[in-house]
């Protein structure tokens, strides 16, 4: 259960008060968005997280009727710069004082008068601006890449400004997979919502389903069965292991190391197989649901899982030796795509990216989800902030996750895995679900109106924070190393575009 306190703030104080509250010791910035309160009023809200006691507070201030502006906090909290741009796109508002104002997800390809969340009573929307940062000077040339890529990956446009083979600046434009997930979540019947929530970024199906379930359970004030919590932990860690294997394999393939790519590809397949053993589907979709688990896990499956786990561990250790002990691999990964700890912290990096740049933050140690924070997690940190550090963090996390899975499976509580959940939600309440997904801190933030309907469902995918890290890390590197640097972050395009 994550306690959420409301902190109303006067519009005039917003710019000074929010950064002040976010900078208190033990607190961090979570997300920033707008919701529609009673009577159609727009409320600007900032979610701040308290790491010391695993609680949260929501600072809110009204947007003046007919207004098309709000004051930006980006100069003081750089981590909020994308969130403010997204608000601009979706609500037709301008963040005054934002150091680099431009549209984020609804760019030129979208109709210029389309503001999905704006209504006519809000007054005239503030027009969007789409522009790339241009780099001047002799010999600077631009390389446009995407949105359609050669591999089977998500669409995104990358605009490089280069001096010879060196990247001077990278502008990232996402927004090619905008599906209106947040709006859909507030519209669909509650029993269908979990399937939509999972699709926010389907490679993190368990994490999204879990954050969704935790938030709804908090709204109801309900606690799922112990067995469900334990199995959810296993499901979440399996997802982490499978994706980390996939990432390490992709890193190997990006430096042309075919042996490493094939080896880790096989391991990823094995880890996805665990997902199938546990939940019946390789990506574990539809498994975690509000109230517990959608179906029971039998003892035979659990025995099979424990057995295949013990077979995977030595194989994983061998594979890591092939990759990490190879001098060629070390040479290609070390010192490439450095994200300095100070910048990682300022721009609010989360997950393995943050931990590779020295941050000790892991949501599993602070916020209630599944068996966490009751379960001891070895937080994997590195300080170099380069591609090698990000790979190293993943390697460490694979083994600590495997250990966690074994630990949880060894002491799995008996009993049912599902409690009955109410048909409706309590009115005028707010709850958040925070999960350490394999990419990092994932937030589902639900607010209900007076009728007990979801009035705003906001999702803060870890990728939404970390994309800025890619743009920073690639500066001054070889253009040729960009795919490698990008893969060392491996962010979700769809998760940042809801």
């Amino acid at each position: 259960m994550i306690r959420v306190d409301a902190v109303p703030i006067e519009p005039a104080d917003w710019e000074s008060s929010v950064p002040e509250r976010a900078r208190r010791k033990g607190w961090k910035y979570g997300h920033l968005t707008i919701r529609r309160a009673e009577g159609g009023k727009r409320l600007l809200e900032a979610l701040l997280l308290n790491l010391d006691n695993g609680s949260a507070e929501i600072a809110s201030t009204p947007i003046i009727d007919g207004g098309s502006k709000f004051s930006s906090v980006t100069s003081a909290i750089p981590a909020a710069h994308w969130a403010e741009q997204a608000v601009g796109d979706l609500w037709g508002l301008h963040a005054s004082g934002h150091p680099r104002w431009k549209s984020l997800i609804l760019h030129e390809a979208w109709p210029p008068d389309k503001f999905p969340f704006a209504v006519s009573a809000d007054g005239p929307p503030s027009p969007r601006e789409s522009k790339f940062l241009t780099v001047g000077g002799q010999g600077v040339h631009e390389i446009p890449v995407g949105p359609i890529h050669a591999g089977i990956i998500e669409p995104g446009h990358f605009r490089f400004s280069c001096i010879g083979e060196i990247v001077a600046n990278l502008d990232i434009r996402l927004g090619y997979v905008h599906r209106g997930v947040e709006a859909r979540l507030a519209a669909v019947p509650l029993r269908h919502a979990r399937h939509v929530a999972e699709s926010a970024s389907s490679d993190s199906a368990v994490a999204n389903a879990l954050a969704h379930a935790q938030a709804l359970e908090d709204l109801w004030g309900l606690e799922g069965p112990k067995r469900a919590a334990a199995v959810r932990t296993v499901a979440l860690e399996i997802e982490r292991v499978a994706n980390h294997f996939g990432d390490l394999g992709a890193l190997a393939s990006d430096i042309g190391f075919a042996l490493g790519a094939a080896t880790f590809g096989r391991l990823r397949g094995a880890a996805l197989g665990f997902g199938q053993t546990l939940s019946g589907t390789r990506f574990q979709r539809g498994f975690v649901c509000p109230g517990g688990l959608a179906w029971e896990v039998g003892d035979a499956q659990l025995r099979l899982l424990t057995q295949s786990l013990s077979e995977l561990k030595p194989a994983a250790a061998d594979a890591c030796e092939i990759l990490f002990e190879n001098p060629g691999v070390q040479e290609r990964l070390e010192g490439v795509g450095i994200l300095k700890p100070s910048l990682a912290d300022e721009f609010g990096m989360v997950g393995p990216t943050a931990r590779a740049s020295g941050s000790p933050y892991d949501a599993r140690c602070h916020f209630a989800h599944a068996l966490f924070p009751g379960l001891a997690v070895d937080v994997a940190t590195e300080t170099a902030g380069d591609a090698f550090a990000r790979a190293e963090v993943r390697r460490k996390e694979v083994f600590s996750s495997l250990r966690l899975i074994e630990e949880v499976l060894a002491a799995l509580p008996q009993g049912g895995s599902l409690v009955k959940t109410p048909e409706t939600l309590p009115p005028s309440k707010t709850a958040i679900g925070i999960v350490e997904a394999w990419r990092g801190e994932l937030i589902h933030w639900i607010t209900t109106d007076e009728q007990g309907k979801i009035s705003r469902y906001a999702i803060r995918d870890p990728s939404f924070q970390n994309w800025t890290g890619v743009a920073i890390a690639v500066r001054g590197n070889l253009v040729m190393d960009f795919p490698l640097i990008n893969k060392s972050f491996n962010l979700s395009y769809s998760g940042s575009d809801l």
Partner: protein
Amino acid sequence: MSLAIHIVLLIALPLLLSCVIRKTKALMQGRPGPPLFQPIFDLVKRFRKGETVSSTASWIFRANPLVGLSIALVVAMVVPWTGAEPLARGSGTADLILIVYLLAMARFFSLLAALDTGSAFGGLGASREAALAVLIEPSILVSLSAVALASGTMDLSVALQSPVRGTVALLSGSAFLLAALAELSRMPVDDPTTHLELTMIHEATILENSGRNLALIETTVALRTAVFFGVGVQILLGKALRSPDNAIVSAASSAAAILMLGCLLGVLEGIAVKLNWRRVPSFVAFSTALAVMSAFVAAVGA
């Protein structure tokens, strides 16, 4: 008779070599890989497909594959890379300088064609390939010159078939093969199987080619690979492979050696890591140093 063998090998070996490389690479990664002859099936498929040509492309783009293939065929016909007797042996047609710069002309056209489409990747690839060509040229030229020096003739059709001292053969042969890896855009300099445009060298220059156009280029690449490997094998092992009175035996042993080299490349591509672009010059410098040493030995020891 010997010329007929040369022509048969010229047609069969390049295709077979690409099959062997691909299969070995797959086996090295611990997977069965596609059927052995898949590269040939792919080539046939591409020859039967239509092509898409950028609207900004001029005649150079269409002519490039034909220029490349013609030059590769001429070189393959006159250079005794198969161990059998090439066309016009001893007539001076296979002059060292002529051959090296014929290949350079083919590259010149491929770079122009890459720039021709106006795609950002074409320009990127062309600039990288040009930089690489500048690095490789001395190594290829000097290693072949060492053989010419040792055998007393600039005509490759004679030089490659005359007995050369072991030290010169070893040094110039290894220098030539190392440079060939870079020249042919193979690992560890370039990853021919990558789909990541930004990391490509050679592949970036042919991204806009499709269908028949692409099939011609791939045929050329296969032919060039076989010729370079063949020349390397002749320099390194020529003495051992030649059997003076039986053309079939010398050709068969040369072909076997070329395919073995293909297996070696497959193994290398399976386990190697692509070099950082900044380290490529030192890789080529290593080959150049070997070439210079071989030329020194050939000049002093002759």
